[in-house]
């Protein structure tokens, strides 16, 4: 569900970015107004640990059916646990970190990704939960209410995405078709999210009922009159979800998200997934359709860009390794962030189908990427090559999304194509693929040479909201610990012969995740008392300049740096603008 760069048109990307920033700013402010600044910062360890938990939980594979796995989005879960305002902030940090550190979701797609995943998802989930929780008397029904809310939140997220597509489609896919595809693909995801959330909240309720917020008032109050029995809600909801799931699950096989996890987590087990339409996509199209001019141009364009990247990279790697490695590593973190974001905006602005422009823009990127690779190999970081390859595997879901767009597009079909793909769809798909590939490469180049701590420092210098940056730094600090705990829990299950293939086998995993939630909360309480113990009274101290230098690379000349960044971003924009003027 993390959309890659260029999935929607630039105007929608910009509009959603404004909208999302507004909502996030509101969430930041309303906290400061309703309570003292003390309480807002007091929530810092908890928000940071929840962010780390969501990050880690998204690494836990949950079986859906027949060996296919998925992971939870977690927005509704977080909202139920820590309330809607903090949930929006926590999810925003997670989504931004995924884009900046792992190239999961495009940087220029952050506007709509934050809107869908960090705002719509937790808010709808929380709203539904409040509605349903009012009718819940027992822990059991409360857990089910949380599950139904989580499922509803996933559907709402898919609906929001479809609505945005109606406004800013990057390919000629009719809204009805896109909505059907999104909804059907995500019904099964919603079902999984619902079941997992039910089990997870259930296990949290047994051990630490105080953690499930927003319940207290309902329990003490009198039962609302004339209420629909919980059992009925549960039964109907489950039945409806199952029916929709069973009807539409064939479509879900091509859902990018389930596949995405599958690919990344099962270490690229291609044979297992091969959804029929994509199996011989490249070969079949190439073999039959090169006569057709539009389709041919699209295909040649895409593969041309790929070849240009490889060639440029190889040449640079062989001839100028040291020059290349200094391109990015000498810049201060904030300059790097501006450079990469500016570059990605330029890529998003390139005219669809202007493949020469993508090729031109890819050259410096590949040089930087190879540069940081060379640097890592020189620094004798053994797993660096494997790590880079694994990161680049994140291109795959973006490519699948591009292929889905190409398949869903309507329009005139070129002769000789073995697949039901329209010419316009092919161009749109290839353009999307180019943008996504460049986006992933750029984010990878940033992440390779820059630690999460440095990125946090850079964002601080760029005056990003300090609460969000602090939550992000907490997350970076603790995600390994939480992830390690998740991994050990999973290993312990596997070691005792547990092998999940179906959703109903997910209970042990959900209770492990529930234990992880409780552990995360308790850890955040311990961190908080460690902070209080050392004199913390509610505001994070500004770190003295002396310490900050430990995170900074040598930055001899700020002015020169910004000049270089300006020149680089400027020329990228020149390429983007000229793509609209040349070759139409």
């Amino acid at each position, binding site marked *: 569900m993390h959309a890659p760069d260029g999935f929607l048109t630039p105007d929608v990307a910009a509009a959603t970015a404004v909208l999302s920033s507004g909502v996030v700013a509101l969430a930041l402010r309303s906290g400061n107004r309703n309570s003292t600044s003390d309480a807002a910062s007091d929530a810092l360890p908890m928000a940071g640990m929840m962010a780390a938990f969501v990050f880690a939980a998204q690494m836990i594979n949950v079986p859906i059916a027949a060996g296919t796995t998925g992971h939870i989005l977690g927005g509704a879960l977080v909202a139920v646990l820590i309330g809607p305002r903090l949930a929006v902030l926590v999810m925003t940090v997670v989504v931004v970190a995924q884009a900046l550190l792992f190239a999961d979701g495009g940087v220029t797609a952050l506007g709509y990704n934050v809107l869908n995943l960090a705002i719509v998802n937790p808010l709808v989930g929380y709203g539904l939960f409040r509605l349903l929780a009012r009718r819940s008397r027992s822990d059991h029904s409360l857990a089910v209410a949380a599950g139904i809310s989580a499922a509803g939140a996933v559907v709402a997220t898919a609906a929001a995405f479809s609505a945005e597509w109606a406004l800013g489609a990057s390919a000629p896919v009719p809204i009805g078709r896109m909505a059907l595809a999104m909804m059907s693909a995500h019904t099964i995801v919603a079902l999984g999210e619902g079941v997992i959330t039910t089990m997870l909240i259930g296990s949290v309720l047994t051990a630490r009922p105080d953690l499930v917020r927003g319940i207290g008032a309902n329990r003490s109050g009198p039962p609302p009159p004339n209420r629909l029995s919980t059992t009925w809600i549960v039964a109907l909801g489950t039945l409806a979800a199952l029916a929709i799931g069973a009807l539409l699950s064939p479509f879900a096989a091509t859902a990018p998200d389930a596949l995405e996890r599958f690919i990344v987590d099962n270490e690229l087990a291609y044979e297992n997934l091969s959804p029929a339409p994509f199996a011989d996509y490249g070969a079949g199209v190439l073999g039959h359709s090169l006569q057709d001019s539009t389709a041919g141009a699209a295909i040649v364009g895409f593969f041309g860009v790929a070849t240009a990247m490889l060639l440029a990279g190889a040449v640079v790697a062989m001839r100028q390794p040291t020059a290349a490695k200094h391109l990015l590593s000498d810049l201060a973190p904030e300059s790097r962030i501006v450079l990469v974001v500016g570059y990605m905006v330029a890529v998003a602005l390139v005219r669809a189908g202007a493949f020469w422009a993508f090729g031109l823009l890819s050259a410096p990127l590949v040089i930087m990427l190879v540069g940081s690779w060379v640097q890592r190999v020189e620094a004798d970081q053994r797993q660096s090559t494997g790590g880079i390859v694994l990161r680049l595997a994140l291109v795959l879901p973006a490519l699948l999304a591009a292929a889905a767009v190409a398949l869903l597009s309507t329009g005139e079909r070129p002769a000789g194509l073995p697949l039901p793909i329209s010419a316009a769809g092919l161009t749109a798909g290839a353009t999307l693929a180019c943008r996504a590939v460049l986006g992933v490469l750029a984010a990878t180049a940033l992440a390779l040479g820059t630690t999460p701590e440095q990125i946090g420092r850079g964002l601080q210098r760029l005056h990003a909201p300090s609460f969000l940056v602090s939550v992000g730094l907490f997350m970076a600090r603790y995600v390994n610990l939480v992830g390690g705990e998740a991994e050990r829990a999973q290993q312990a299950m596997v070691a005792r012969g547990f092998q999940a293939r179906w959703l109903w086998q997910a209970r042990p995993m959900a209770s492990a995740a529930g234990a992880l939630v409780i552990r995360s909360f308790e850890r955040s309480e311990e961190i908080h008392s460690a902070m209080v113990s050392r*004199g913390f009274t509610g505001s994070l101290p500004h770190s003295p300049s002396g310490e900050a230098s430990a995170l900074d690379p040598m930055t001899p000349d700020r002015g020169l740096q910004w000049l270089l960044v300006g020149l680089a971003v400027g020329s990228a924009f020149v390429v983007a603008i000229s793509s609209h003027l040349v070759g139409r």
Partner: protein
Amino acid sequence: MTRRHATPRPSNAAEVEITDLSFLYPDGSIGLDGLTLRVPAGERLALLGPNGAGKTTLAQHLNGLKTAQRGSVRVDDMLIETATLPIIRQRVQLLFSSSDEQLFMPTVAEDVAFGPNNFDLDPELVDERVASALSAVGASDLAGRVPHRLSTGEKRRAALAGILAIQPDVLVLDEPVAGLDPAGKRQLAQYLGQLGQTQIVITHDLSFALELCPTAAIINNGRLQAIGPTVELLTDQELLRQNSLDLPFGFRLDRLDGTPSASAKRPGRRKS
């Protein structure tokens, strides 16, 4: 921005006096049950006792993370109460049993600076404190490191530097050697032995207690069971057995020092 910086407070060892301290957890389980204990200034006291005896609960009372439900805690005649907390937290510092919770800032240097910054010290003085605290535990080379990449021993020393930078009068160390290898344990004992502050060391490691602390107290069921020279408590087989304590296999104290345990004072010890 004009910000007045607090004048640094001189650090010296302080006496800790705990009088009839009781604490009940919300679920009704007993944390502390009328505990009375005096630790003279500059003394290193080992706090021994089985799991759930109330050791960590006591530690949390010593710098006001928990407030006394009954009884009192004084540090050099300063009663721990809400009004004195800002000063108490400069005077008494806790080393938590898990260093991961204590090291939450992005780098070790920033984490060590966290405490001094909270007390509004002059930035130059903060830098100075960070440097001296790190060197006091042999961790100067860790300054720029990211906490989650440190080994357990390095984390423990970094966390210790974080509380030393506040220059407290009393150190309360909760399980300082848990998870450390023998070399790391010896190293930590050596650094702690050089510090002049009053130290209250909670540990299950009886040989570590013997090495570092001349005096020991045994706590069980939230009450003081015995207090006396460490070597005497550890040679009293009966006392150790009653409090679920056990010396390491093959470790015999009577070979080191044959004094029988009769001279150990046992306030609050019940006859059974």
